[in-house]
């Protein structure tokens, strides 16, 4: 079974290539745009093909012998070239459908962002180019290859060398105390690589009917589970979901304390005896709490990622997935 990964030099592409090649009967061929993109594949000892799949001739040459084509490629959209770049990305999908053989299974990596407003109120479906691109890509697959095409709405991909993992662990490693600005019970929409691999295996082996699927950890992990998975043992973790967290309280106390302390001596001079005691108490407590707040802020790492604010989706729609925890342990 020859499996081509278009965009196989990306973080996800390389992770998949390294795992899929271990399956009996699978041979994996990452397909990249140019020789510079092939660098990491060379280092990983993976065979590759160089082809710009948006070019018809190159697409025909690179894709015609594949049994499976995974579309993982995506060009970053420039501010001034949004429309052009969007069409470029859709051309990859179109040409993959056009220039692979009839028997070839096509697997398109869409994204949960395609859910648009359902994922986050801030996403304006009509105006968000990424949402539009992914939905149009799904439509191409659905209309062109109803019998052999899969569109996978991937969750936030986590795993070794994955961007979100690197971003998160940068905050977690070496921190004794963490404040995580997330609802710990909210479903995270995280997708670990082993679950994606299992999903791909089901698609490749036609164990699930072609169509659109949402691919997430099985079962969905809450943010508590994600953070605790990556945090070092012994880390004290606190979840805060609004701005009235300790660091904000510390700031407010500090600014009020400074304002208060500056005038306390004068205030004390003119304050009746019966009011002095509560004032002194307030002075001591504010001074102390201000310094403690400052110390707590120093020794506490605060983690706030944009994906924390996304609404939790329902469970993955890929049937019969092995629990992700189990797959990770096996790795």
């Amino acid at each position: 079974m020859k499996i081509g990964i278009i965009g196989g030099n990306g973080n996800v592409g390389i992770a998949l290539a390294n795992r899929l090649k271990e399956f009996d009967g699978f041979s994996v061929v990452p397909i990249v745009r140019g020789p510079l993109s092939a660098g990491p594949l060379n280092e990983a000892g993976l065979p590759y093909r160089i082809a710009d799949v948006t070019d018809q001739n190159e697409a025909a040459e690179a894709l015609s012998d594949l049994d499976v084509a995974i579309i993982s490629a995506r060009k970053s959209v420039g501010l001034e070239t949004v429309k052009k770049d969007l069409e470029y990305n859709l051309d990859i999908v179109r040409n993959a459908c056009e220039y692979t053989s009839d028997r070839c299974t096509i697997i398109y990596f869409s994204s949960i962002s395609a859910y648009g407003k359902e994922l986050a109120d801030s996403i304006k479906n009509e105006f968000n180019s990424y949402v539009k691109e992914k939905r149009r890509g799904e439509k191409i697959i659905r209309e062109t290859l109803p019998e052999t095409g899969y569109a996978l709405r991937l969750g936030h991909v986590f795993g070794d060398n994955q961007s979100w993992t690197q971003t998160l662990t940068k905050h977690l490693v070496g921190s004794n105390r963490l404040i995580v600005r997330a609802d710990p019970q909210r479903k995270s929409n995280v997708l670990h690589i082993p679950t994606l691999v299992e999903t791909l295996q089901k698609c490749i082996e036609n164990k699930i009917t072609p169509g659109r699927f949402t691919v997430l950890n099985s079962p969905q992990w809450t943010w508590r589970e994600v953070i605790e998975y990556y945090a070092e043992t012994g880390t004290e973790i606190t979840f805060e979901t609004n701005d009235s967290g300790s660091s904000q309280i510390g700031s407010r106390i500090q600014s009020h304390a400074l304002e208060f302390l500056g005038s306390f001596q004068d205030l004390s001079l003119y304050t009746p005896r019966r009011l002095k005691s509560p004032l002194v108490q307030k002075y001591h407590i504010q001074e102390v709490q201000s310094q403690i707040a400052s110390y707590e802020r120093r020794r506490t790492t605060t983690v706030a990622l944009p994906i924390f604010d996304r609404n939790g989706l329902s469970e993955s729609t890929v049937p019969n997935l092995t629990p992700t925890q189990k797959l990770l342990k096996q790795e």
Partner: protein
Amino acid sequence: MVAEVVRKKYTINTVCAINMIDIGIIGAGGMAENIHIPILKSIDDVRVGFVADIEKQKSERLGNMYSISSVVIDDISSLPRSDVLVLAIPVGVRQKYVEEAAHRETPIFCDKPFAADLETHDEFLNQATYIACNYQRQFYNNIRQMSDILTSGLFGPVRSAYFHEIHPGSTGINKDSYRMDKGLSGGGILIEKGCHSLSQIDAMFPESEITVSDVDIDFVEGFDTKVQATLRIDSSLHSFDLEFKLGKNRHDSTEAGFVFDDVKATFDPTNPSDPVTIEPADSSDGTTFDIKPANEHPIEYIPAMYRSWEVFLSELDCAVRSDLEVATSRTTTRLIDKMYSDAQVDA
């Protein structure tokens, strides 16, 4: 809907702590008013149950100020029950409270110095269920970082060192202060200030043998006012003499310094925000580097006190606790005891 309660106060790492710790404070003086009660009111799961003093006016004043129960100490056995007893009282009057706390199996948190002499120190350790001393300077960032440097052998073995603590100017001690009564205070500058310095040296060399010699103490009307001594520090990594100096001579300066083969590390041990400065051992070209303070170590006095409380509270109800000799810095009391003893002999 928020699933986790947003913290309004700071939660101690209470892996071992019991729920809602009730704390009784003995001594309604400045430490209780300015330090212990405000800090404890900043900590979740902790409640100041009462403040007690032999003087009614003092305990009532603090009780009213902080809206906590105030107690006049008459019969110690009738003091309210608590989960922890804080002894914010002079060393000279602690004995009976330690005995009562031991009888109740109540853990004790003492202000420094811990005990007037080594014999009393050991008696306290033998009696108490759990007892620790608030040597908060041990938590200062510069001490913790210097400890890491020394323990790791980063710059190799120490060749020589000095620890000078100088307090020029007014003492701020009124004539009716307990510090003017040796029976209450235990002595002069050595036990009052020197206990801090020695506790910091103890903290930096945890697995070492520390002995003292060449003790020279100036006394004024029975109170020690200036101390010089040589501390010998021996461990698997280091073996050197440390020059210890404590006094008020304004021509001296407060500084701790450790000299290695190629490098010298210095800092002000009385200033928690002072960084550890690294320079060539021969100080030839004036190049210096300041080590950035580590986020987890306090760089202010109050957070150091808070950290001291944090460590104490985290030990409560633990199956395995820190060594009491370490928690009370027995080494500090032993060295002070020896210095006074040597000085009296010489006198």
